[in-house]
């Protein structure tokens, strides 16, 4: 017997059909002693790389294949490419089907297969129903395929069904194959790797069909037989047709294609006269070096360049640098700010090419962190672009390379605990209410699946068989891919056709195309990707530069900003950093007064230190103590002093961790990098223990304390995923410094630009503008006669004279002399198009509501929004008067009317008797401001309640600073931010705002349970608690919370509470550019446990994990 290869397997990349991971199929195939397997998902190759990688690890042969399903009634056909060329055609075929269809679908016809099927072994697979009805179609397909490709390329697949008459069916198929003159091929047509997965397959069917298990009837599998079988089993089932089983292994000789054959080829760039890419790169780098150092390249950099050139040359990476260089050059030519981040900043070449901005002369770069000759993986250059203009760059790439050569990497969206519970619960017929309650018991979004104990704690009985099954199956389905989405910005660009490397699909977004593989797949195959990322701060900086140039006549740019400006550091030390890149969050602000940054390098440390990596490695405390002189700076050894000197003996950066391994444990640089990467992916590689032993023993052998060695190792573990490389921190620190400098000297331009770049960053316009006003900048209301779409600057008072006392020491550094005029973009619900029409038709100004209606041609709803936002105040019309006038306008009138109509409208107005409306009370005006603009320049709503609040003895937030620590206080304010790190044990952090400032409130879980309603539902809270103060950071630890939202409602006659409008919970826009880089929820939970004082301020981390909680709803 010659063995068996299973060639028809649906992995779970046949979404909602296959019930096992590709890796599970491989494992089971090895256990059963199969010769090879082919994962053949339905019209996709999304799962083949995983199968390939897993098979390689265990030494199994994996065949690439696909199950083609047709839209024209053709029976399904299994296709396996025999060589690279045929594989390319398969990719083209699938791309063709994908591009024709909606996202996620693939429309193919038999003619397409005829056109592209050369070099593939093709096997029609009759369906699982009665053969009789299908026989004609199968026979016809067989004939057509054989006639086109020849009999040696065609087989008829037969699968055991365990139906009433399998042997009769096999005989029929054999006869059909005989007639067609092709061979019969035994396949499994499998859904799950072991019989025990049948329930999951059934649940997937129910989910797919949108019905409950009970209602799914015969759409479910009749038995558990679609599992992998050994060759002996197959031989027994096909005992009447032994050759059909042997055919599977015979085919292996023909199907020689392996994904290893995919050679990544860099796109060719214009070499501008150079002989080869390397020469072009050297020339460009040299030119760049001359610009960077007009007086000569420093010696150390010269050495680094030579080192890098050698490695780049050896590995042939030059074209890649040229491609990135070209993209960055394009962006610069359009005036789009761009800056490389991540490990690329370790490269002197990248600096010279202008891809990164971190001066290699300043630091000591570890190029191996970026490119390692031992690591057969392509370098990874991530470049940030202005978030509002990144699309231009993306379309440039598509335009230059074409959609056949460029595509975005996919990102595989998988089931998480909650989605798993929800969908499995539905399949089991649980009611929506029960499902909501169930998934409500699950905290976090783990991919490991829901834990039943959580539900048990919430009062669900797991004795109930149905519930127990829901949990068991939800745990199985968690981590299953649901669909492919697009990676945030990872581009794959190839020299040849990309659609012959991997199938390409349409993305959900217009004008985007996505390949079927994600970044891990690409990594595994050594295919290069360039991350084209979006960064809001770059947009804001460019806008603020433009404002300063226009209004102050001072040329601006990232490189123009003076270095090491003392006033800027003074401001940073005061934690006066609202709006500043990276260091604006509470976590960062808490750290600033302790770290007391005085130089650029301190900012680099600041950026790197508030990260899970250092926190997990327990490095923050020692560093702070040393920094504050509370602890002597000592080094474990002489050799490590060189490594850890700049960080006072405490490793804070990835590179340092690696260098410890190199210097103290005798690793090679490439080994050290492997170690770091092993940490990140240790589960897949499974080599962590050998590294741990090697490192710890290596260090002990060199005389280090074992405990220290183990701590170092733990730290690398944390760094693996969550630490910053120094180079990356340095790239970010450049933007920290630039934005801090702008805020320090031009708070008007800075705030204006920030508001115009929304949504981005951490704070909502209300907080940004409030901060600007506190720094003396006048902010003027929206005005139909003065406002543009964006906020603008207009001549105003000198800000330095108007700074509030709290920021008094900052005054002399402030050069602003302009006021911010709020733009029409602030008016909720007003479209940019409407605003443009208004501005275009403004002429010498509008003199009435009717005038504006007639000339700007806006519809009434738009004008009403303007009136609601009090934008007619400049005309002397208060809100109600303006609204009264708007109400008189004809509904839906859009077009500018003729002069005649005009006169008519006037006549009507004249005819109407004047109506005296009751003036709006001031408190209500403020509420209306918040409702329509999300902020008010008149005052703070809480100010109108001050008398009431004083009567119940509340302390103003601004007075907390002068209150004794440990005192019992009562504070009141609007809830700005509510959040809870993803752990059931987590504390809740509330930020309350009143007219004097913000109060930070901590709610411990036991208090939370008691005041759940208040914490979650209140817009205006009164909190009793104890004041805690540490290094100038003040918190109120809550004992009791009271919901006083009703007081707010009374301010407004309409009874509206400034709910979402007021709470800048809206800041919760996750920053897309950095999502996914930060730790998972469980890491946050660990953070909370281990370093409480940092943990108190997790806004930023939590937000990045996409978990800020608008209105306190979806915060768990």
């Amino acid at each position: 017997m010659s063995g068996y290869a299973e060639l028809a397997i649906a992995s779970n990349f046949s979404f909602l059909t296959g019930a096992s991971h590709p890796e599970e199929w491989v494992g089971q195939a090895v256990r059963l002693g199969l010769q090879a397997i082919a994962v053949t998902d339905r019209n996709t190759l999304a799962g083949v790389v995983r199968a390939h990688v897993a098979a390689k690890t265990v030494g199994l042969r994996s065949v690439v294949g696909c199950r083609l399903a047709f839209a024209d009634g053709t029976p399904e056909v299994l296709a396996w490419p025999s060589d690279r060329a045929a594989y390319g055609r398969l990719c083209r075929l699938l791309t063709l089907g994908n591009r024709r269809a909606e996202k996620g679908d693939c429309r193919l016809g038999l003619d397409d297969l005829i056109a592209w099927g050369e070099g593939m072994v093709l096997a029609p697979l009759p369906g699982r129903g009665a053969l009789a009805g299908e026989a004609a179609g199968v026979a016809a397909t067989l004939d057509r395929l054989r006639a086109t490709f020849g009999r040696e390329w065609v087989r008829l697949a037969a699968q055991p069904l365990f139906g009433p008459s399998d042997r009769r069916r096999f005989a029929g198929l054999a006869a059909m194959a005989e007639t067609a003159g092709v061979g019969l091929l035994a396949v499994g047509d499998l859904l799950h790797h072991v019989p025990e997965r049948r329930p999951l397959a059934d649940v997937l069917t129910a989910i797919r069909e949108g019905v409950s298990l009970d209602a799914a009837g015969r759409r479910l599998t009749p038995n558990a037989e679609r599992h992998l079988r050994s060759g002996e089993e197959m031989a027994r089932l096909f005992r009447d047709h032994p050759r059909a089983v042997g055919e599977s292994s015979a085919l292996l000789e023909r199907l020689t294609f392996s994904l290893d054959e995919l050679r990544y080829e860099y796109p060719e760039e214009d070499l501008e006269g150079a002989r080869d890419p390397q020469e072009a790169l050297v020339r460009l780098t040299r030119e760049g070096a001359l610009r960077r150092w007009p007086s000569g390249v420093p010696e150390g950099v010269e050495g680094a360049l030579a080192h890098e050139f050698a490695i780049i040359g050896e590995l042939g990476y030059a074209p890649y640098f040229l491609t990135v260089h070209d993209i960055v050059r394009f962006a610069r030519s359009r005036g789009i700010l761009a800056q490389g981040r991540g490990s690329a900043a370790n490269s002197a070449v990248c600096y010279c090419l202008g891809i990164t901005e971190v001066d290699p002369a300043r630091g000591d770069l570890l190029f191996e962190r970026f490119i390692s000759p031992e690591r057969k993986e392509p370098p990874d250059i991530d470049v940030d672009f202005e978030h509002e203009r990144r699309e231009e760059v993306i379309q440039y790439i598509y335009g230059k390379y074409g959609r056949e050569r460029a595509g975005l990497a996919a990102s595989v969206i998988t089931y998480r605990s909650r989605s798993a519970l929800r969908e499995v619960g539905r399949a089991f017929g649980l009611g929506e209410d029960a499902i909501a309650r169930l998934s409500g018991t699950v905290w976090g979004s783990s991919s490991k699946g829901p834990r039943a104990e959580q539900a048990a704690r919430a009062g669900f009985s797991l004795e109930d068989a149905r519930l127990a099954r829901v949990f068991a199956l939800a745990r199985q389905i968690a981590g299953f891919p649901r669909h492919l989405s697009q990676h945030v910005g990872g581009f794959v660009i190839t020299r040849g056709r990309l659609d012959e490397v991997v199938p390409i699909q349409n993305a959900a977004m217009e004008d985007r195309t996505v390949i079927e593989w994600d970044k891990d797949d690409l990594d595994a195959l050594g295919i290069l990707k360039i991350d084209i990322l979006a960064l809001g701060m770059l947009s804001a900086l460019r806008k603020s530069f433009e404002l300063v140039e226009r209004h102050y006549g001072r040329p601006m740019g990232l490189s123009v900003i003076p270095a090491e400006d003392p006033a800027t550091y003074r401001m940073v030390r005061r934690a006066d950093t609202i709006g500043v890149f990276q260091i604006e969050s509470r976590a960062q602000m808490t750290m600033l007064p302790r770290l007391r940054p005085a130089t650029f390098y301190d900012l680099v440390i600041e950026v790197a230190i508030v990260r899970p990596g250092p926190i997990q490695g327990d490095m923050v405390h020692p560093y702070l103590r040393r920094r504050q002189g509370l602890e002597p700076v000592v080094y474990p050894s002489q050799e490590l002093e060189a490594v850890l000197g700049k960080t006072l003996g405490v490793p804070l950066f990835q590179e340092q961790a690696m260098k410890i391994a190199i210097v103290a444990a005798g690793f090679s640089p490439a080994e050290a990098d492997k170690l770091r990467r092993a940490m990140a992916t240790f589960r897949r590689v499974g080599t962590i223990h050998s590294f741990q032993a090697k490192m710890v023993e290596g260090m002990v052998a060199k005389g280090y304390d074992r405990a220290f060695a183990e701590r170092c190792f733990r730290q690398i573990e944390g760094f693996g995923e969550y630490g910053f490389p120094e180079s990356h921190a340095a790239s970010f620190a450049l933007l920290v410094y630039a934005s801090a400098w702008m805020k320090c000297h031009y708070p008007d331009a800075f705030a204006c630009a920030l508001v115009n770049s929304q949504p981005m960053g951490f704070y909502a316009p209300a907080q940004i503008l409030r901060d600007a006003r506190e720094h003396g900048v006048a902010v003027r209301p929206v005005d139909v006669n003065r406002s543009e779409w964006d906020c603008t600057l207009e001549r105003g008072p000198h800000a330095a004279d108007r700074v509030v006392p709290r920021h008094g020491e900052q005054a002399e550094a402030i050069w602003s002399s302009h006021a911010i005029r709020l733009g029409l973009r602030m008016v909720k619900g007003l479209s940019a198009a409407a605003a443009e029409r208004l501005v275009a038709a403004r002429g010498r100004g509008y003199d009435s509501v009717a005038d504006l209606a007639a000339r700007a041609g806006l519809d009434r709803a738009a004008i009403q929004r303007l009136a609601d936002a009090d934008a007619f105040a400049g005309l002397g019309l208060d809100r109600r008067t303006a609204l009264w006038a708007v109400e008189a306008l004809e509904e839906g009138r859009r077009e500018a009317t003729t002069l005649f109509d005009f006169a008519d409208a006037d006549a009507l107005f004249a005819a109407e008797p004047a109506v005296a409306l009751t003036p709006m009370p001031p408190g209500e005006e403020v509420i209306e401001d918040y409702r329509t603009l999300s902020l008010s320049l008149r005052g703070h709503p809480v100010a109108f309640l001050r008398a009431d609040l004083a009567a119940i003895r509340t302390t103003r937030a601004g007075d907390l600073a002068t209150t004794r620590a440990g005192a019992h206080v009562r504070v009141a304010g609007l809830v700005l931010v509510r959040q809870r790190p993803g752990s059931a044990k987590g504390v809740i952090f509330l930020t309350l705002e009143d007219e004097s400032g913000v109060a930070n409130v901590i709610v411990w879980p036991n208090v939370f349970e008691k005041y759940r309603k208040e914490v979650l539902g209140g817009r205006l809270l009164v909190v009793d608690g104890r004041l805690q103060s540490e290094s100038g950071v003040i918190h109120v630890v809550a004992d009791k919370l009271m919901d006083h939202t009703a007081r707010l409602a009374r301010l407004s006659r309409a009874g509206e509470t400034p709910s979402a409008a007021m709470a800048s919970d809206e800041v919760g826009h996750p920053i897309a550019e950095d999502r996914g880089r930060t730790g998972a929820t469980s890491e946050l939970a660990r953070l909370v446990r281990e370093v409480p004082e940092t943990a108190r301020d997790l806004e930023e981390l939590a937000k990045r994990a996409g978990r800020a909680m608008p209105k306190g709803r979806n915060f768990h």
Partner: protein
Amino acid sequence: MSDASLPFRRLLALRLPRLATDRLHRRAGRGSSPSSGRLAGGGATDAPLAIFGRVGAAQRLEAVDAWAEAEGLAAGQPLAEARARVPGARFVERDPAGETASLEAIADWCDRWTPLVALDRTFDGEAGLLLDVTGVAHLFGGEGALAEAVVASLGRHGFAAAAAIAGSGAAARAVVRHGLDGASARVIAPGEDVTAVAPLPAAAIDPDGERVGRLMRLGLDTVGALGDLPRAAVARRFGGDLLDRLDEACGRLERPISPRRPVAALTAERGFAEPILSEGDVAQVVHSLAEALGESLERRGEGLRQAELALWRVDGTVQRVRIGTGRAIRDPDLVVSLFAERLKGMGEAIEVGFGIDLVRLSLPLTGRFEAVQGDFSGADRSLPAFEELVDRLGARLGARRITRALPGDGHLPEAAVALVPAASAEGRAATAWGFGAAGEPPVRPVRLFVRPEPIETLAEMPDGPPRRFRWRRVLYEVDRAEGPERIAVPWWRLPFGLGPEADGSEEDASHADATFAPGGDLGFGAVERRLAPEVATRDYFRVEEVGGRRFWIFRAGIVGRETARPRWFLHGLFA
């Protein structure tokens, strides 16, 4: 009613602010202890109750009971938020049809005060009734007493209610929603409507929430303030209908209330000066009414599908009986007999009491009448006969109890047949029993045993057919066999642990690790527990013994995976 020219009308607006929750409490309370204490005041059960509805994908609370309100829940809150705030509360999805039914039942019940009862749907999502109580208040001790009585008696039935009486429906409605000042009933004296309504918020007269919001923002927060404005200015800005609403509330404009009961397609009635007193008379009247209606139906080419018989007794009660038919009919005899069957089926009789003075037959639903032409023998009338049988049996026994066997959607042979009501659309549909392919032997037996019968066998391992078997003490030699057809039980209905679910042991291993993990073998303990045939996977064989008889037998349990010693059963007989 003798006096047709009353100088003014009087209307009672009834508001049932917690109908959605009260009806659920009432239903729950009825089962256990229908003590009035438990149901009083709008209901009280163990957990706060809130009703939610969905608009698109969003789920929001739409009604809350008193307990939920005390916990801070209110209509309009997002469901998720409410859940987080009050985890112990019960959240039930809105049942608009059920609420309407409840409201209609209450409306019927309000017949006792006045026959003119209308469902009040002016304010969307709020349950209310309008009762025309013109000239009836004196029967109940005056308007104040009447209003109190209505509220109190509804309260006794578990419905929180409030009532107001005024000169127009709009004024009464405005007062009952916004002008009660904590009382449960209020009467606006004739002529006082305008002064009563003036201080109320605009929302009291205008159901258009968006418009009310606009009015509020302009500071026009009372009906009075609105009334003070120039009418043209109001009409221009807010539409003429707002003025209409204002005028209605001030009694300047009258809108008739619309009768509650739907108007039937066809109705015939006969009144009697002398009340009829015998059941036989009633049957005759029904027959003649059916005959009269039959003519109308014939003209329309239709037949009746539903009919309602209403009998007004002289004591003021109304008896209503309803029938439905599977196909359109006209035959008056048939109609009479269907009503008779219906009454018998309900264990009722026509209660003549002191006599009946009005009989009405109405046809809420009619359908195309399809004449069936008989053949010469006049024998083949099977279809109508069958339908007639279904109708008659249904009228007598309840339509749901007359069922038909249809192919079921399930793999298990037991589940391959389903009984559905013969009168339902599904039961009426022609259905094919598409089993097996043409030219091949049937895959299912003609006769399936309810209980598979154990047999002794000698069979090939692991999944071969038996060579011989003993059934009911007779030994059969198997000549030919086909199979196995493997059918597993619906695992999700088994007790947990008996199903083939994979264990949770993979919980902390990533799927990549599973590559190296041992397979999901089940322990031997589990194997033994699964021996019960109702739990085990079955391998069915169609066998033919040497004598030519054919059987459907199965092996319970997959050897090696589920059991070491499978048992055998005979489950059916082929012809």
